[in-house]
């Protein structure tokens, strides 16, 4: 065992892996931005039952939810350059893997958030819309000021779960060579021959950060109560 794992080496690895936390958070932040915007768009398409777009949204979400994430990462990483080149003629193959990973996780997150957002929007009672209408608010104002804040509150716990899940999923970015925490752990492990030691160190970091994220969302959820 001594050859594969020492507590000393384990502790020694932790700061080295933690140094790549900014890269992991960059993937999380970038994918969340795409996921929230695209997820909202898909949710509204479903809520308003927009023809054609609605069917596309349904197919999109079932694809995202029905295929393994690692497959999605590979499809985007290998497929997106081909797609972009055939449409626009621009060669993006040389771009950093980071961009493709952010797009892949962004799409995946959108698929899950779309359903969450749709459920949240549909949970706002009809009477809230009517009260806004009777008050002479425009449709946009009703959504901005009444419906979306209420739906956001409803979606918040599920959103937190999705963020924690996304954070852990980013570990798959290493499969296409992104040097995030997981990439660093794999590198250290193979360079030193102490794979267990480096993956254990990564596990500890993932656990700590996941707990902090969960705690932050629980706190936020308790603060937004509308008096309940």
């Amino acid at each position, binding site marked *: 065992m001594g050859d594969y794992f020492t507590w000393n080496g384990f502790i020694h690895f932790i700061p080295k892996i933690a140094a790549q936390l900014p890269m992991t958070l960059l993937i999380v932040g970038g994918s969340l931005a795409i996921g929230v915007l695209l997820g909202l768009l898909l949710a509204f398409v479903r809520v308003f039952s927009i023809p054609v777009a609605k069917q596309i949204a349904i197919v999109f979400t079932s694809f995202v939810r029905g295929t393994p994430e690692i497959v999605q990462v590979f499809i985007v990483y290998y497929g997106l350059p081909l797609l972009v080149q055939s449409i626009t003629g621009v060669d993006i193959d040389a771009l950093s893997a980071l961009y493709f990973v952010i797009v892949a996780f962004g799409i995946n997150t959108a698929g899950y958030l779309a359903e969450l957002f749709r459920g949240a929007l549909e949970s706002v009672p009809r*009477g809230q819309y009517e009260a806004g209408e*009777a008050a*002479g608010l425009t449709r946009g*104002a009703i959504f901005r000021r009444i419906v979306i804040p*209420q739906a956001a509150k409803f979606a918040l716990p599920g959103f937190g779960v999705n963020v924690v899940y996304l954070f852990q999923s980013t570990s798959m970015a290493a499969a296409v060579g992104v040097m995030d925490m997981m990439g660093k752990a794999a590198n250290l492990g193979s360079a030193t021959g102490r794979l267990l030691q480096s993956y254990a160190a990564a596990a500890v970091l993932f656990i700590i950060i996941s707990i902090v994220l969960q705690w932050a969302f629980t706190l936020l959820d308790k603060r937004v109560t*509308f*008096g309940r």
Partner: protein
Amino acid sequence: MADAQVIVSGVKKSFEDNLVLRDVSLSLQSGDVVAILGPSGSGKSTFLRCLDYLERADAGTLQLGNDVYDLHDASNKQILEVRRRTGFVFQNYNLFINKTALKNVMEPLVCAHRVPKEDAERIAKEALDKVGLSDRYDYYPSQLSGGQQQRVSIARAIAVKPEVIFFDEPTSALDPELIGEVLSVMKNLANQGITMIVVTHEMRFARNVATHVVFMEGGVIVEEGSPEQIFEHPQQSRTRQFLQQIADDAAIG
């Protein structure tokens, strides 16, 4: 009725094959309080909702002052205009659950009537004071009783100084002991000369506060007149039956 403030004429509405409103017309002077009575399913709520475009009538017009609005065919701009010139109080209050009492009352002022925030806050506080809730500005709807919520919703309606306020069974969702506080607020409004159309089951309110009583059934106005005419000398047998039924139910209860 040359100086009538609110004239509704020829409102028709059906849901699929079900004819709910056959041809309903109504005329109010400024300061009138019209009570609409009738058994459930008589179309009285639908009638009120058509006036605010919450349901789209098949035909009919609403005249406010000198402006006539088509209740079937109206632009978004006209619909907003009608809604901004009128108030609506719902059976289930429908307060914005993400906003405090004060913000609920401010919302139409700020967002629909473009009143500056500071003025809106002052007006909203005055309105809440009027309905006896000066100690509840910062309470969320979930922290208020049904009666208090309904009073906030009345404050929300009066704050914008509408030309007429529509009340859709404002006390029907309330526990019996909370009905009085809402009715007394409405009575105050009536005494201040606010024009109101009230769909209600509260016979005493209709009798003592209303200036005009309408009895509806089967999508038409069966009979209308002063409270005295309707309650003391109803001409139609259906009106008599309905009032008798209510009286019997009250005796049993």
